[in-house]
Structures are given as structure tokens and as C-alpha cells.
């Protein structure tokens, strides 16, 4: 699949402070890329560079074939940006705000698109109300409508669910999934790790520079050994001894009523392990793989990065 976003060593320095350092990243067309990083990591600066709002100090970026620092006007026709703060003219109505932003795009039917997105974001009944009277969730939905009003191919979302209640967050997630189904490219900037895993095809971990870039499962496999958890009615020494004698078992840990076991070949060894435990008198309630959370991946990688940087 072709790359729709490509950066080549982009670096941004503000008054001597490096915000983005030598970022090389490629995003495929139709992909949802989760761009993860702590506060102040340079995520928003990266989005601003990629959306052609600011220029890199060094390096270059192309989005859909347009140089972000040279073809901003053409680029802005095909990208949508959800900024970290949903800024609106608070004295104007929701409809008027959307109309204002929509009229900057060529080749769109402003009235049709405005009505479509007001309905899609469930703001139709409040379309004539001043935005100043809207809740944070409503403003965020309106900001999403604004980012999508011209049906962009590429959508940059900067913390789309920050500060939203769970109900609204779920709605936003559904919308991102819909964008993915429509084969649009989404650059999802977030520090919500669960959100990143739920929605992204790949995750880029970023802290001024790119720390890691892969799918969540590949990152997990690179960082952690696969372990099986056997949950039982009770765990006694006889069972532990029986497990330890198995030649494919590399390590056993008892955690309350669970045994956490590391195997030589995860998929092949599991049936034999289960059989041995039953033979030893163990009453198994469930067997599942220990799944390291994205949070664990994140913390491990960030700690390694900090250690490297000293």
C-alpha cells in the first residue's frame, strides 16, 4: 500500500529547545496511526508541521504528495485537522461556525455538508444555538464536524477525546472506526493508551524523537515473553512441581490462585501443559495468555529511552 505521509528527518527547534528531533515516519494510505507520547513530547508540533501550519527547522514532510512547507493551500484542501482545543466563535451559532469554515474549501456544497455533519454529530436540534452555550462534548463534536466538513482524505486528530466523558468518547471512537472503514488515513495523536490500541493499526511512540513504531502486538512480542496464565480452584506445591518437571517450561510463578508459566513454544506446548496439570490433580477454571497492556509497553519503552538519553 502506498505511503500517504512521509517525513524525512524533520526537526523543529523553538528558541534553542528541540521539540521534534529527526522524525522519519511513513504512514500508509487508509491506515490509522496512533501517535503516542507524554505531555510536551512534541506531538502537537508534529501535527502542526504535517498539516502545513508551521515549517520544520530541518528536514521535510510530504502529505499526499504535497510538501507541507510549500504547498500548504493545496494540502489544506485534502486534510482535516482537529486541534487540541476546539476553538469556535462563541457568539455565532453552530451552523454559522461550520458554514464559515466550510466556505474556505473549493468544490463542496456548503449547505449540504453543513447539514449532513450537524445531523451526523447529533447537533441538528442545537444548530441555531450559540456555541458559547455548548458543553465541552458538544464543542468537540462540532470540532470533529469542522475537521470532516470537506470530506478530507487524511485526518489529523489531536487528543480527540481529551476531557470528554466516557459516553462522548465512545461516540468519537465509533466515528474514527467509521473513518477507517471509509479508508481514510487517520493520524491519531493521543496519550490515551487504550484508545490508541483500540483504534490504531500501528502505534508510534514519540518523545521528541521516534522511540518505536509497529503494531501493538509486535511491540508486545518484542518487549515481553509470551506467558500463559492457568487459573485454578487452588494451587498446591504438587502441581507446581509437576509443571516444573516439564521440559518445555521455562519458568513458573504462583500468583494467588494462578500459575503464570513461560513456555518454549507458546501455541504448541499449551495442551500438554494443561494435561499435566489435570493429571497432577489441578482443577482448572480458565487458561489464557497474559496480555501486557499498551501502558506496560509504553512505560517500558519510555524508561528505556530515558535511560539511553541519560
Amino acid at each position: 500500500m502506498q505511503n500517504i505521509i512521509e517525513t524525512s528527518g524533520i526537526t523543529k527547534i523553538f528558541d534553542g529547545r528541540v521539540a521534534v528531533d529527526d522524525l522519519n515516519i511513513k504512514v500508509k494510505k487508509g491506515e490509522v496511526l496512533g501517535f503516542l507520547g507524554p505531555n510536551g513530547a512534541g506531538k502537537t508540533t508534529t501535527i502542526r508541521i504535517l498539516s502545513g501550519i508551521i515549517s520544520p527547522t530541518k528536514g521535510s514532510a510530504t502529505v499526499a504528495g504535497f510538501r507541507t512547507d510549500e504547498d500548504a493551500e493545496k494540502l489544506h484542501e485534502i486534510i482535516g485537522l482537529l486541534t487540541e482545543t476546539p476553538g469556535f466563535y462563541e457568539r455565532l451559532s453552530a451552523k454559522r461556525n461550520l458554514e464559515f469554515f466550510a466556505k474556505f474549501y473549493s468544490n463542496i456544497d456548503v449547505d449540504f455538508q453543513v447539514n449532513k455533519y450537524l445531523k451526523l454529530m447529533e447537533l441538528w436540534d442545537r444548530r441555531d444555538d450559540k456555541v458559547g452555550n455548548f458543553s465541552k462534548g458538544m464543542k468537540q463534536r462540532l470540532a470533529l464536524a469542522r475537521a470532516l466538513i470537506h470530506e478530507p482524505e487524511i485526518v489529523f486528530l489531536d487528543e480527540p477525546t481529551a476531557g470528554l466523558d466516557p459516553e462522548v468518547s465512545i461516540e468519537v471512537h465509533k466515528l474514527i472506526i467509521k473513518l477507517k472503514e471509509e479508508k481514510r488515513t487517520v493520524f491519531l495523536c493521543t496519550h490515551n493508551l487504550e484508545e490508541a490500541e483500540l483504534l490504531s493499526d500501528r502505534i508510534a511512540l514519540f518523545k521528541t524523537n521516534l522511540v518505536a513504531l509497529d503494531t501493538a502486538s509486535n511491540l508486545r512480542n518484542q518487549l515481553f515473553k509470551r506467558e500463559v496464565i492457568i487459573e485454578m480452584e487452588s494451587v498446591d506445591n504438587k502441581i507446581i512441581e509437576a509443571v516444573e518437571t516439564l521440559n518445555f517450561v521455562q519458568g513458573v510463578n504462583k500468583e494467588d490462585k494462578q500459575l503464570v508459566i513461560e513456555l518454549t513454544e507458546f501455541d504448541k506446548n499449551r495442551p500438554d501443559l494443561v494435561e499435566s496439570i489435570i493429571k497432577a490433580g489441578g482443577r482448572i477454571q480458565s487458561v489464557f495468555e497474559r496480555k501486557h497492556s499498551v501502558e506496560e509497553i509504553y512505560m517500558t519503552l519510555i524508561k528505556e529511552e530515558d535511560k539511553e538519553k541519560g
Partner: protein
Amino acid sequence: MQNKMAYTRINNVIRKEWETTFYNLNSALFITLLPFIITLQALILIYLVIKFSSSDALVNTILQRGVDTLQGTMPSLLTLSPLEKFQVLFYSQFPFYLLLIPVMIAISFATFSIIEEKQARALEPLLATPVRTWELLLGKALAGAIPSIIITWICAGIFLAGVKWIGTSHLLKYVITSSWWISILFFVPLITVFGFMLGIIASSRTNDPKNAQNLAIVIILPVLGLIGIQLGGYVILTPGLLVIMAGVLFILDLLILKVAVRLFKRESIVIKWK
């Protein structure tokens, strides 16, 4: 096609500027009422001076020197009575006094406009649309300049009607001279641009419209100074001198426009405008 889009975008910016400015009661009252108050104040003042003072009372003031200097540049004044000469001197200052109106309106528009954008935090999403920086700046400038110039010209009309109402319409031919037209047609737009750009520069550095508007004093003081030195007879601004001054103001406009455009770069707006 591109020109049509630019026109649509500029028009879009102008419309939004007018809506947001006139939805704000403070700015709406300031822009619409203040110019008429300034004009009426000038008319009432002139009326009272003329009604309740005699030419004898004015002869011994510094204003006599102003009349003498004016008479030097306009010999036809010799046929008028001493009181009428004073009236012409007063009326001749109005085009300069009138310059306070575009200054105030343009600065108000610029400050309300930019600070509204900053407070709304709408500039970043706006800059992510295909609007070009010059289209945005021109749209904002025109949104301020159009009402500013129209209101100022309406006030000039009201003043002339007032002069007639006071019963001195026979003096209008001494007032509506080439200096009057230079001031109305050139100084008003030029000073509007200057005021607007000054407002943009000031607003980019503050979040309080009042702080930004205080900068109006930079323009108001020289304008009041012009009136003062004319009334005192130190200088009379002849058409030639006014053309030179308009040229200087034009150059100042270009310089300040350059500064404003630099400040209005996307990166400055997003990163530095706090």
C-alpha cells in the same frame, strides 16, 4: 477560478468579522455611536463659541494668529467679517478632527477581531483551511476599513449639514476646498489602514482589547497636534503640504503593513500569539 475563490474567502472573512463584531454590544456601540458623538460635539462646540462670543473676544486670543495665517493662504477671506473668518478657521479644522473617527474605528475593529480570535482559539483551525494569510488579513482589514470610511464620510456629510443648519452655509465654499477633499479622500483611507495595522500589531501582543486600543494615542496625539498648530497659526496645511503628508502617510502605511504581515505569518500566530 483562483481569483473567484480568493474573492469568496475574503468575502467570507468580512461577513464573519461583521457578525462577530456587531454581536458584541460594546464594540457595536463603540463603532456606531462614537463617530456621531464626535461629530455632534464638534458642531455644538463651534455653535456655542460663535453664539456666545464676539469677534472682539476672539481677536485677542491666539486664534487671531490662526486667522491671519489662513488669510495669507486664502485671500478671499478678506471680504468676510472678523467673526466669519473665525468660523472658517474652526470649520477648516473639522477634516482633521474627523480623522479621529477612522483611527478609533479601525483600531477597535482590529483589536476586537484579533483578540476575539485569540480568545476563541479559532485561528489554528482557521489556518488549517485553504485560506491564504493575505486573504485573511485583507478580509479583516476590509471588514474594518469599509465601515470606518463610510461612517467617516457620513459624519463629514452630517457636519456640512450642521454648518448649514447653524446658518453659515455661505461659508461652505471656504471650507470645502481642495484641502478638504485631500483630507476626506486620501487621509481617511490612509489613516484607517495605519490604525488597523497598528491595532493588529498591538493585539498580537496582548489579550486585552483596552491595552491594544491605548495605542490609538500614537495616532490621535499627532492629529490633535495638527489641529492645534493650525488654530495657533503656526502652520497652515496647504494642499501642497497635505499631498506631501499623504505621501509620507502612504509610506508609513507600507512600512507598518510589512510589520503586520510578518506578524501575521502562520507560525507566529500559532506559536507566539498568546
